[in-house]
């Protein structure tokens, strides 16, 4: 998939995944890269920016397998951003799909 498409939706994907439950970085990366190809490293600058903006908070939690993991949790502010992005995305894909299906073409 085109890289320009992905950069825009990556933030929305991360916020949606964190809306389900708190997750650690690797888990987020795996969840997304199973669905579409990304450069896995780019999630971390994004997470850092979301934290700076107050959309997510982080905390460390011990894991059974070894050292503590850094968990990311969606804040109320992040939830609002997520809802806005999802709404925009849905509006956008409906419009684009309509175009692809040839709806309303005659009206031009």
């Amino acid at each position, binding site marked *: 998939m085109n*890289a*320009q498409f*992905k*950069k*825009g939706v*990556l*933030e929305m994907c991360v916020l949606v995944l964190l809306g389900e439950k708190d997750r*650690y*970085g*690797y888990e987020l*990366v*795996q969840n997304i*890269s199973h669905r579409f190809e*990304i*450069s*896995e*490293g*780019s999630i*971390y*600058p*994004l*997470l*850092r*920016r979301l934290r*700076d903006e107050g959309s997510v908070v982080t905390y460390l939690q011990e894991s059974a*397998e*070894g*050292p503590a*993991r*850094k968990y990311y949790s969606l804040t109320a502010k992040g939830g609002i951003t997520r809802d806005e992005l999802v709404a925009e995305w849905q509006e956008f894909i409906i419009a684009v799909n309509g175009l692809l299906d040839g709806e309303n073409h005659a009206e031009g």
Partner: protein
Amino acid sequence: MVKIMQKDEFLSQLRQAIKALSVDEQEEILADYDEHFRMGIADGRTETEIASALGDPRSLGKEYAAISLVNRAEESPSARGLGRAVIATVGLGLFNLFVVFLPFLILVLMLVLILIIGFSLTCAGPFLTGYAILTLAGLLPIELDTPPLAALFFGIGITSSGLLLMALDYWLTRICYRQGIRYLRWNIAVISGKETL
């Protein structure tokens, strides 16, 4: 471009690229990738696989450095700080030469030009006023086409417009600074670093 790399080399290249950041920030960033490698290995992947899926550490490092410089320029505004942030952002992609550097240069030149004009007008006014006063006082022969009294007020007017222009320029500069920071942040988040995706 795809280079075979192990965890140590990935982390050391990343460390190299973010050495302008504070030590705390560096450690935090490196810890994120260190954790990623550990999780990946526990997941049964090799260091080389994980590193190549992560992408180019230098590009990632440049993105971190640019964000950090933009944050710093916002927290403590200075021409030098903004300049560094702009250059770091331009370094994220050739395209930014046209959408960051060029507009920035034009804007700076425009603001400097307005300042120079304002300053010149402010300085020119008193000369005219002074000349008019000396003429009115009879200390100088009347050589102006304009009546001395008109020249006096004209001089005051010129100075006032110069001062006004400089105040306007100051106000414009502040707005441009704030919006410029917002634009850089947006640019880094949306446009730059496409190559790393």
